């Protein structure tokens, strides 16, 4: 596979290393001459290209036209957006992936057709949130344009559903328990499953039923 990465910061460097180690053809674009030189000394001259990935002349000379994937990982969302958009628009690149630094920008990336985005800030935020707030239901993903949420809830000893069978719970309309994590083992949930303290429940829930599910699974919070 030929992958073009735009942005030779830490993310770009680590990504390039791993993709190279996996045997791919990789080109890393960096517009700062000094940084490009540093990168070249670490990755090899042939892997690094000095230039602005938003310029069509640069895109042409590094071969956007034959790239299998273009990945934009600069620290600026506007640069990542334009590179990916041009890769699709001008060069018909089949797969583009963008790093989104500010999670509130994700919607516009989707709206212009960049469906693959990675938001480190968003991921770190939800990981931290997970650690600092017990008894919370945490959204881990969204399906159907956000109308269905994938959520997980860690059941503490305070949860009202501990020691209940799933069949006896009155689940909100359209809600489905997909999976249960117990002692680092994944279990498929059936009506017979009895919920224990320390279980993490993964559920699909329509967005408007999320608060009903929270009320069911988690202790009342004043």
């Amino acid at each position, binding site marked *: 596979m030929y992958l073009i990465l735009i942005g030779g910061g830490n993310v770009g460097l680590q990504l390039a290393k791993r993709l190279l180690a996996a045997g791919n053809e990789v080109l890393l674009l960096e517009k700062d001459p000094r940084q490009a030189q540093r990168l070249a000394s670490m990755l090899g001259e042939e892997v690094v290209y000095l230039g602005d990935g*938003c*310029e*069509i*002349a640069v895109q*042409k000379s590094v071969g956007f036209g034959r790239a299998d994937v273009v990945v934009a990982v600069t620290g*600026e*969302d*506007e*640069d990542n*957006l*334009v590179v990916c*958009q*041009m890769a699709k*628009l*001008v060069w018909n690149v089949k797969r583009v992936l963008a790093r989104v630094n*500010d999670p*509130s*920008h994700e*919607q*516009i990336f989707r*709206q*212009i057709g960049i469906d693959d985005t990675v938001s480190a800030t968003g991921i770190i935020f939800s990981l931290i949130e997970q650690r600092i707030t017990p008894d919370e239901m945490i959204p881990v993903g969204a399906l159907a344009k956000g109308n269905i949420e994938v959520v997980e809830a860690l059941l503490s000893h305070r949860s009202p559903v501990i020691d209940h069978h799933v069949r006896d719970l009155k689940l909100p309309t359209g809600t489905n328990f997909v999976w249960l994590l117990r002692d680092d083992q994944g279990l498929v949930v059936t009506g017979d499953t009895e919920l224990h303290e320390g279980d993490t429940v993964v559920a699909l829930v329509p967005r408007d039923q999320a608060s009903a599910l929270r009320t069911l699974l988690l202790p009342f919070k004043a």
Partner: protein
Amino acid sequence: MNVVIFGCGRTGATLALHLAPNHSVTIIEQNPEALRRLGYKHNCRVVLGSGIDEDILERAGIEKADVFFAVTRGDNTNLMSAQVAHLKYKVAKVCIRVADPNRAEAYRGLGYFCITPSSLMAGMMRDWVLEEPFAPIDVYNILPKELEVQ
């Protein structure tokens, strides 16, 4: 008209002052210093921040805007903010300053009205010295073959 302008450089400030007497103008700018270009007597609304952020755009009244101008120095900043204005807030008219003529051409293909100052200026200078009348903007957007990439 409700006008929102992102970028208070020379272009943004001049445009704002052209329109302000007869229209409701809001200008978005990151750098408070740049607002001096408007002078002290202007009647524009000012919002400090970046026009790629939705809360800033909303504070500038983007939901009721009839036209949005993205005229900062950053091509990508302009292209992103204008697309937010158009796609998310359904602003009917958006105008984007894009310094890179090739990038501008790509987005013209999507239907955006992009102005490339260097192309415009070079074309007008050509017509001036040849004593030709000034032409419509589309004429100035045509690049000499040597500058075309594809």
